[in-house]
């Protein structure tokens, strides 16, 4: 029988069906021994899925509510915050239930953070709101574990608009372990969060402020004047907090695709809850997400790396420029911002080659392999026998 393409395809399909019937396991649900009680199991699984979805929804609402509530408090106490002069350090407002020991520790850490920057401080008024993070119920409804999350402390910042004087406001939430006296806020925790940029370099130019707002300040959440990137700095700065392997834009930027580097800076920096959850009913908060640990990752430390690389004097000129961040950076350094972002990506993650990468060795090996195959065929293949 001649093997025609149609017969070949039919045989393949038939073989696949036979394999499917023979090898694939049966659906276990009709098997009375495989499940304890199928009718309950199906219902229980459905309820569990609904419960998980409701849990995610509640957490997103809690985050959005907390961000909106913080902004409300900042507006309410704006006059109180404004009474202090920038020269005397950030004005700190404590919620009524913050104990004296925690107040003293927070004040001490903020003073130390400012002092570590030498003369780079007091350029713009900064406020700090300090809360405890121990709420267990909300209007009688019990908050599940994880809502009042940080065991030590979390920080975030509000956009610099709530008060009449446009000051940047940092929010510190003190966790249970600190309040119980089981732990203390470590001295390397920067409580001013992104407001440290305002404190060190004053208010940003209009376009840079708009860029910060549009990216929920996601590129400047920590400031230090540590030396330029050492191995340990790289290790601490690099994390998967705001980046994961499937981030093709970052990969293309590391591969010297400069337009993608520029596009990277225009991407909204969304908190993980909104990135992972398929729930559009809760809008992404306009305020930045809170961090429970010292700020990690490529995005959140980008401006911090810029300060360390070009120095605070030149960074101040970039920061206060009325132009866009790209133009301001180019004016001050003579280098395009995209090129710097590319270098930053390479510094942290190594170079990347876009597309296939045939090297001389692999090309020679391929040619040699083909030549060998041809030679073997020519030598050993059977010749057709002539009639």
């Amino acid at each position, binding site marked *: 029988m001649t093997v025609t393409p149609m017969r070949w395809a039919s045989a393949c399909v038939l073989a696949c069906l036979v394999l499917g019937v023979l090898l*694939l*396991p049966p*659906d*276990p*649900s009709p098997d*009375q*021994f*495989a*499940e*304890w*009680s199928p009718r*309950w199991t199906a*219902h*229980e699984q459905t*309820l*569990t899925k*609904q*419960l998980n979805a*409701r849990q995610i*929804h*509640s957490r997103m*609402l*809690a985050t*959005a*509510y907390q961000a*909106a*509530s913080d*902004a*409300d408090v900042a507006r309410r106490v704006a006059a109180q915050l404004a009474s202090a002069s920038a020269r005397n350090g950030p004005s700190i407002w404590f919620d009524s239930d913050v104990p004296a020991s925690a107040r003293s520790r927070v004040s001490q850490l903020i003073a*130390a953070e400012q*002092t*570590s920057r030498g003369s780079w401080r007091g350029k713009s008024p900064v406020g700090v709101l300090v809360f405890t993070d121990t709420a267990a119920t*909300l*209007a009688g*409804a*019990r*908050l*599940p574990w994880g809502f009042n999350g940080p065991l030590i402390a979390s920080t975030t910042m509000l956009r610099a608009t709530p008060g009449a004087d446009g000051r940047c406001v940092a929010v510190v939430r003190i966790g249970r372990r600190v309040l119980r006296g*089981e732990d*203390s806020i*470590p*001295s*390397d925790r*920067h409580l001013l969060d992104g407001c440290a940029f305002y404190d060190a370099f004053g208010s940003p130019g209009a376009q840079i402020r708009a860029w910060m707002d549009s990216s929920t300040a996601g590129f400047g959440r*920590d400031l*230090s*004047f*540590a*030396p330029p990137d*050492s191995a*340990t*700095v790289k290790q*601490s700065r690099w994390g998967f907090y705001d980046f994961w392997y499937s981030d093709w834009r970052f990969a293309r930027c590391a591969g010297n695709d400069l337009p993608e580097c520029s596009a990277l800076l225009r991407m909204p920096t969304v908190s993980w809850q909104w990135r992972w959850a398929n*729930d*559009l*009913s809760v*809008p992404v908060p*306009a305020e930045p997400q809170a961090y429970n640990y*010292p700020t990690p990752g490529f995005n959140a430390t980008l401006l*911090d790396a810029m300060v360390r690389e070009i120095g605070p004097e030149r960074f101040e000129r970039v920061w206060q420029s009325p132009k866009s961040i790209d133009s301001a950076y180019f004016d001050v350094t003579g280098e395009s911002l995209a090129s710097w972002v590319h270098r930053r990506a390479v510094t942290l993650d190594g170079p990347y080659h876009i597309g296939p990468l045939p090297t001389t060795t692999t090309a020679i090996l391929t040619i040699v392999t083909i030549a060998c195959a041809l030679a073997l065929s020519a030598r050993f293949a059977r010749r057709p026998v002539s009639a």
Partner: protein
Amino acid sequence: MSEPRRVVRGLTLPLAIALASVMAAPRVSTAQSTAQYRARLIAALRDRHALRDSLDALHAHRIAEVPPDSMSSGRLHVRYSKATLGPSLDATLRGAVRQAAGDVDAEFGDAQIGDSGAVLVVSRVNWGMFTALGFDAVLVELSGGRGRMSPVRSPITERKLADALVDMIGTLATDGVPANVSRWAGYHTPARPLTHDDWEAAALDLATSNSSVARTCYSGSVAGCESALGLTTVRDSLSEWYTPEGWRALVASWNVQPGDPALAAAHAECVDKKVMATCERLARSRPVPVPLDMATRSTLFNLAIARGGRSAYAKLRSAHGTPLEVLSAVAGIAPDALVDDWRTHTLASVPHGVRPGAAEATVLLAWTALFGFAATRRRS
């Protein structure tokens, strides 16, 4: 069929699909006020609690379906459905329950484990993310909505099942551990017999600790052991537990974030330049750890239980006082005697170095002779 009717019929399906798409599409919300978020959050939390209650009720229904008196052995009552487990697992479970009943009696003695013994529910489930790729497992859970479950995965043996049952009962036995003892132990009071590995880990912790009191414990001071185990009151833990060199060792163990140049400089000053004043300042900025770790402290807890015999868990529930007084009451011996016993046990478990035996020595000599002989032959 008339032309208009055909047109209407032709449009019905696309229109229905379009309408369904619009209605089913997620509604993108816009920013809301704090009060609106609060109201939505409260509603979501209540909804969540209602779902949780429904799930709990359903679980209770499932439990109610299992025969209440499937199998008992001693104080161990197991509920399961024979039809669900099948004959092979049924036989394995019966063997496991017999083993577990003996273990429970030996380990927990007179401990109160439930009002009339422990009731456990055993079920067979498909374990894995995808049903087709999952595998059978047996789930052991405490009856009465206590929430603790433990899966026993394939291959399911009598020993594995018995261990899971005993582990579950351990949860009940350590229920009444006084809060201060639990806190002292680092919230880690495993109810199980100690193994040689546990003692060896404790011995290594004691022998390698950078604390001065741990060293005095090692060299024979019972008071030092009590202090190193965190059993005595200390006024200044840093200076009482650690010497200045210990402060430096504590600071050296930190993973300092380079984002803080002041801290990084101070860290280097302490660790590299050995400026003890800086070490002290830094060490005081964080909680001072108890010299001997949580796992080591749990060996003392388990030793007291073992010394206490059948009534140990019962005494544990009713004992009062400091953790050392409670453990001493449980063990039925004086505090110093208990700690001394612990020290003796720990030091006896210090791993010895590798010593070559007769076989190793013979092989060594044989190789030496062989190479020596070969070298001589070559020269000639």
